[in-house]
């Protein structure tokens, strides 16, 4: 069973439209949700968490339907927001006393261990904590009720490199448990290079791809060559092209096809997730 199933999801507000999005988050793995700012990552996560009501489509978590009239499915979710959603005039201890009773599996000992590990002072008011402390606190609260699914919205944005690495180690440790799943939205793709098993890429409210990281990296290819290699048909074969006086650099989603087209007249490079995101967002063409 997949941890999350998204089927034909659609949502419009203002100038933003999310259209017919369908994908799944496999159980037992780390899935990275990537896309440029405004792509719809937060809207998607908020929909899963019941904060945004979709115009159409279905979302389910561990087979249970998601929506404003559902609440129980969130027992299995540890949610970490990119912003502080807690009552900032309360202390960390007071906030914990509000959250803990909602979860029958709350583990006070585990919570204390995280508070010690992250060096968080229980009596400090949330508003007086730094961004990093608030994020650590959010992680401590989310992990202390033994969730099967961690949903994290841009958790590493604004964090120092030391804690970012610590957080990734923590996620790697959490995922060791077979039943655990992580959905992790970010635009810092280097984090996903380290830990993600699957990558879901959305751009302008549309799904570009959702696949294993290894398959994605194996199928995409960066081609570099002189401008004389480019004509109308070739341009259409590439997802995005960056041209300069010296030549061009383009991304192909079909490694074999690109090598057939350019042969030994071009140079080839393995793209990173950031390259794929950059060229796709720039070119704006979804993968077939």
């Amino acid at each position, binding site marked *: 069973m997949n941890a999350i199933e998204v089927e034909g999801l659609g949502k419009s507000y203002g100038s933003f439209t999310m259209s017919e999005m369908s994908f799944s988050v496999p159980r037992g793995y780390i899935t990275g949700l990537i896309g440029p700012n405004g792509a719809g990552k937060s809207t998607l996560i*908020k929909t899963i968490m019941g904060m945004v009501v979709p115009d159409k489509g279905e979302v389910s978590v561990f087979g249970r339907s998601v929506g404003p009239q559902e609440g129980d499915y969130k027992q299995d979710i540890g949610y970490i927001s990119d912003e502080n959603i807690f009552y900032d005039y309360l202390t960390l201890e*007071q906030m914990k006393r509000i959250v803990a009773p909602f979860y029958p599996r709350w583990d006070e000992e585990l919570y204390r261990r995280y508070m010690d590990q992250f060096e968080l002072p229980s009596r400090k008011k949330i508003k007086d904590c730094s961004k990093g402390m608030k994020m650590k606190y959010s992680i401590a609260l989310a992990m202390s009720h033994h969730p099967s699914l961690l949903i994290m919205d841009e958790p590493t944005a604004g964090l120092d490199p030391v804690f970012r690495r610590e957080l990734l180690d923590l996620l790697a440790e959490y995922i060791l448990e077979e039943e655990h799943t992580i959905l992790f939205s970010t635009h810092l793709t280097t984090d996903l290079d380290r830990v993600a098993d699957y990558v879901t890429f959305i751009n302008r409210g549309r799904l570009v791809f959702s696949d294993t990281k290894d398959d994605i990296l194996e199928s995409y290819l960066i081609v570099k060559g002189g401008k004389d290699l480019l004509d109308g048909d070739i341009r259409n074969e590439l997802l995005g092209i960056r041209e300069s006086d010296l030549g061009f650099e383009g991304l192909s989603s079909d490694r074999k096809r690109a090598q057939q087209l350019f042969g030994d007249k071009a140079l080839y490079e393995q793209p990173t997730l950031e390259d794929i995101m950059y060229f796709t967002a720039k070119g704006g063409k979804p993968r077939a």
Partner: protein
Amino acid sequence: MPRMICLIRKDIMLVYRYMWLVLIYAFVFSGFIQSNNSTLLYGLLPGLVLILGIGSDARLPNQQFLVTLPVKRSYLVLSKYASSLIFLVSSIAICIILNVATDMIDFGTVRIDLPFVLGTLISMILFISLYLPLYYWLGVRGTQFLNIAMMLIIMVGNGAVTALLSSDDMAAPLGWLSSHALASGALLASATVLALVISYLISVSIFRKKDL
């Protein structure tokens, strides 16, 4: 712990920081300082407590937090009504205690104006019935203006209702009501409960569709 209890407990914890403000207000507007403690105290203290209690998690991030809890949205709304009623009864109890204390000190006897207390209770339940759907509809920014408008309504409305009940024109209807105390009490109670139920259904239908 049942989730409804957790939500009510949360509201009580959030309003706890205003405790001193409420107690100071209650003392200043009681018979210890004022010549007549009824109007200002009964008129404004329950309204103040309700607005503080309901508004304690009105900010959008806090609304988002509530929705991430393993609770249905309709439960969140229901708990707000339950907390509001608890705040209302508690604040009226504070008014009664202060009233009794000042009467004991000033006159050596206890006088509780039961119709006035019941009138305050019913008018405040109607206030909750009106306020909560507007609170869910307008969100945090709208609620700031709503609070000012509602405090004015409480002040003006309370004076107007008191004046109306004291006027000669009301003598006959009030006389009829007091001679049919059971029937009029049942009618009033039914109308109040109906107002609360309708208000709750409107609030749920607004909050269910709201993007946070």
